[in-house]
């Protein structure tokens, strides 16, 4: 055995089969109900994120169908104003808080460790805790909606409408508390991703050799760190205004209604970039693989990502041009909003240049990326129009804006997400998705989307405001709304095709193998689906496209123990091996802590004392979670976070 101080280490002296058997036993996550709640395997937690976020996407999609059905005819009596307000608020809140951010974070939780070439995510128990908090937040909101306590003041709930005076009952409180849940979960995952990318990259993967997907996830996480506290502060202040009589937003007592808009949109605009930037990472991975060429202009792409990250924080006031702010201030935000079109334009150019020089192979993922480019660029250009103050005075809060943000969010995030699904499904399940069904899925989505949302540009120009539960005849809006309804039906069919493809391929999809697309990045260097420890040996990275450099053998490092869970920490800049970090074992306590925190949040809606007394159970649960268990080893003990 190897000469090191204790335990058996992997290397030439152990056969591959022997190494694998020992690692399987050491890293076993267990079976059964207890293991289900106690697992800390980042892949299992990520799969739960995918499934839960997709269920919320599907539910919110049904609400969208209901909205279009109600608006298909003028003066339609199908849905009353009270129910319609709940439906459009739930559609917006679910898509933004319960689908978009969690699915992107789930993607990061699954693929960041794999692409970094490490064995687990940093702080695996915190990762499990973050999923349960997210799940409880989503369940709370949808149970409230089922009990007719769904929020009805819009997904950004402007005060004073969402304030105590004009929103009776507990509806907006449940919305504000849902934000506390999802942001807590989002912040936790952001910390994990930053720590994983900075400290756990495979030896040799210096910052300039990191795949663009990791860069995008890093920028997303930093944006989350600095954006989400703003909405947590704002929603706490709103819930205090509503429940304990503070006056943050009460103009009569020195507060200000616009304070809510400033705080919310300081988070709101970075939020849409938090959703959009990971999509850039997905597109870069897909384009590079399917054109069989490294991305054109890697340094320019990285700088563009970072530029979007910073600029995203400087233009929130373009949501408030019509509130009568001084014109000089607003024109600054016009310039800032225009400037952000430059890095996006550069990125689009670089992808097309990659296709230009590469040999594109139009499998479904690349089809969806082409769809992304066609739709997102149009959305970006309508964004440039909305950035101008005078233009926004006419277009703000109309269906033109609804068309714009669906083009940039559905086009800019959902299309790349579906491309990512077709691209990484083989790695997650070991089977390929059906290509023919994929093409049908793409074309129905592409045509349905444009049929549904392009007419909304004209509806906006024809003066149709947002969030109306009905409209009277004779305003010229009838035909276009009917067209939009047809489009949304087609999108519904496309989503069903996607579900069929996802479910059917689980059993009937062709066997994928380790690297079906001949892709360059490290997640394709291990088997599909990857074992709980991801890599039998930690890879050594010598170029930014490892699997294209080494086609026969993968250079790896030996020396990690096979009978103790550990991985290697590397230095931040050029990833030189630094520390052998032990990895946490499965534990039920993150799940119990999440329940305690959830009960505290929900109880605090009904009595402010819950914040004081409700904090005790979570404190106890988290202490037990962190308290080291078992007898301490000789030199290093197992960690707890």
């Amino acid at each position, binding site marked *: 055995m190897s000469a090191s101080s204790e335990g058996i280490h992997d290397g030439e002296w152990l056969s591959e089969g022997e190494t694998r058997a020992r690692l399987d036993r050491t890293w076993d996550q267990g079976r059964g109900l207890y293991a289900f709640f106690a697992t800390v395997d980042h892949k299992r937690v990520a799969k739960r994120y995918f499934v839960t976020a997709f269920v919320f996407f599907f539910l919110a999609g049904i609400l969208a169908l209901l909205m279009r059905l109600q608006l298909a005819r003028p003066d339609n009596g199908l849905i009353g104003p*009270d129910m319609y307000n709940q439906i459009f608020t739930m559609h917006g809140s679910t898509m933004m808080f319960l689908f978009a951010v969690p699915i992107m974070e789930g993607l990061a939780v699954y693929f960041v460790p794999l692409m970094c070439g490490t064995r687990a995510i940093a702080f695996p128990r915190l990762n499990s805790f973050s999923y349960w908090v997210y799940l409880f937040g989503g369940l709370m909101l949808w149970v*409230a909606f*089922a*009990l*007719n*306590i769904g929020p009805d003041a819009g997904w950004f709930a402007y005060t*004073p409408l969402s*304030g*105590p*005076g*004009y929103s*009776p*009952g*507990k*509806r907006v409180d449940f919305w504000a508390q849902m934000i506390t849940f999802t942001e807590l979960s989002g912040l936790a995952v952001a910390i994990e991703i930053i720590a994983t990318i900075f400290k756990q990259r495979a030896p040799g993967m210096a910052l300039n050799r990191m795949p663009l997907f990791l860069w995008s996830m890093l920028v997303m996480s930093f944006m989350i760190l600095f954006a989400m506290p703003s909405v947590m502060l704002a929603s706490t202040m709103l819930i205090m*205004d*509503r*429940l*304990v*009589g*503070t*006056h943050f937003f*009460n*103009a*009569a*007592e020195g507060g200000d209604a616009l304070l809510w808009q400033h705080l919310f949109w300081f988070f709101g605009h970075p939020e849409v970039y938090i959703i959009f930037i990971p999509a850039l990472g997905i597109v870069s991975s897909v384009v590079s693989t399917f054109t069989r060429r490294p991305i054109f202009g890697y340094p320019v792409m990285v700088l563009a990502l970072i530029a979007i990250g910073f600029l995203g924080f400087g233009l929130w006031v373009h949501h408030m041009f019509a509130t009568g702010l001084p014109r000089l201030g607003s024109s600054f935000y016009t310039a800032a909003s225009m400037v952000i079109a430059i890095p996006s334009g550069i990125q689009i150019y670089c992808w097309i240049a990659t296709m230009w020089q590469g040999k594109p192979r139009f499998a479904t993922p690349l089809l969806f990326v082409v769809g992304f480019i066609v739709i997102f660029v149009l959305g970006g250009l309508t964004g440039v129009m909305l950035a101008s103050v005078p233009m926004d005075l006419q277009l703000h809060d109309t269906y033109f804006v609804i068309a714009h943000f669906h083009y940039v969010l559905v086009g800019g995030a959902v299309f790349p997400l579906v491309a990512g699904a077709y691209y990484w499904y083989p790695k997650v399940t070991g089977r390929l998705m059906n290509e023919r069904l994929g093409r049908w899925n793409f074309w129905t989505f592409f045509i349905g989307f444009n049929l549904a949302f392009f007419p909304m540009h004209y509806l906006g120009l024809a003066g149709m405001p947002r969030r109306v539960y009905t409209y009277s005849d004779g305003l010229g809006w009838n035909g276009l709304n009917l067209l939009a309804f047809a489009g949304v039906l087609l999108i519904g069919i496309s989503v069903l095709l996607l579900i069929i493809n996802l479910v059917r391929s689980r059993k009937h999809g062709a066997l994928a193998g380790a690297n079906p697309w001949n892709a360059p990045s490290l997640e394709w260097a291990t088997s599909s689906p990857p074992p709980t420890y991801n890599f039998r040996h930690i890879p050594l990275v010598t170029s930014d496209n490892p699997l294209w450099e080494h086609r026969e053998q993968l250079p790896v490092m030996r020396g990690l123990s096979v009978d103790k869970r550990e991985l290697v920490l590397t230095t931040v800049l050029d990833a030189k091996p630094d520390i052998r970090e032990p990895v946490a074992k499965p534990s039920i306590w993150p799940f119990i802590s999440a329940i305690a925190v959830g009960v505290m949040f929900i109880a605090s809606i*009904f*009595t*402010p*004392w819950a914040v004081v007394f409700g904090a005790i159970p979570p404190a106890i649960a988290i202490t037990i979670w962190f308290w080291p268990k078992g007898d301490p080893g000789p030199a290093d003990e197992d960690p707890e976070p």
Partner: protein
Amino acid sequence: MRRATGYGRRATVRSRSLLPVAVATVVALAACHRENRHFTAPPGTELSPPQQSMSGLVAGGESVEFRKQQGKEYEGNAYHMGEGKRLFQWFNCSGCHANGGGGSGPALMDDRWIYGGEIDEIYLTIVQGRPNGMPAFGGKIPSQQIWQLAAYVRSMGGHGPKSARPGRDDHMQRDSEQGRRDQPINPAAPPSSTD
């Protein structure tokens, strides 16, 4: 014999799954009552004619049980209490009752009710008016609005579910109502319901 046990097992399974459903419906009933928005007044609330009568015995007109049953519908409903608070300002009840602290009219925050503190008794007080200055609003305010006012007045006194009570007002808190701070209904209740 086997069929019986089979039946027994299936029954227990069904009863076990019924329990959570029962709990959920109870929660649902409690919650959704608080949150329902009734826009049209419930049937049979025709405008009660103004009459001056001191006793509950009313020839014809609404019977006591019917009124009590109606009161239930308004009492715990957050929407009606919110509307009641708005009407309290609109119809200038604060002119005499000064947001519940009491001025020329009696205080509505405390537990002393000269003419009865139940919701239907407050409804009758508003409809019929009372000596020493309480005008009869019977013919002047539609009965749905009077019920909403009665529900709000009861919530000012701390009755009715706390979760349904309307929150802080959006108007200036008049310092003159400082007096009412020292009669908190119950410490946990937000002081906001008094302005």
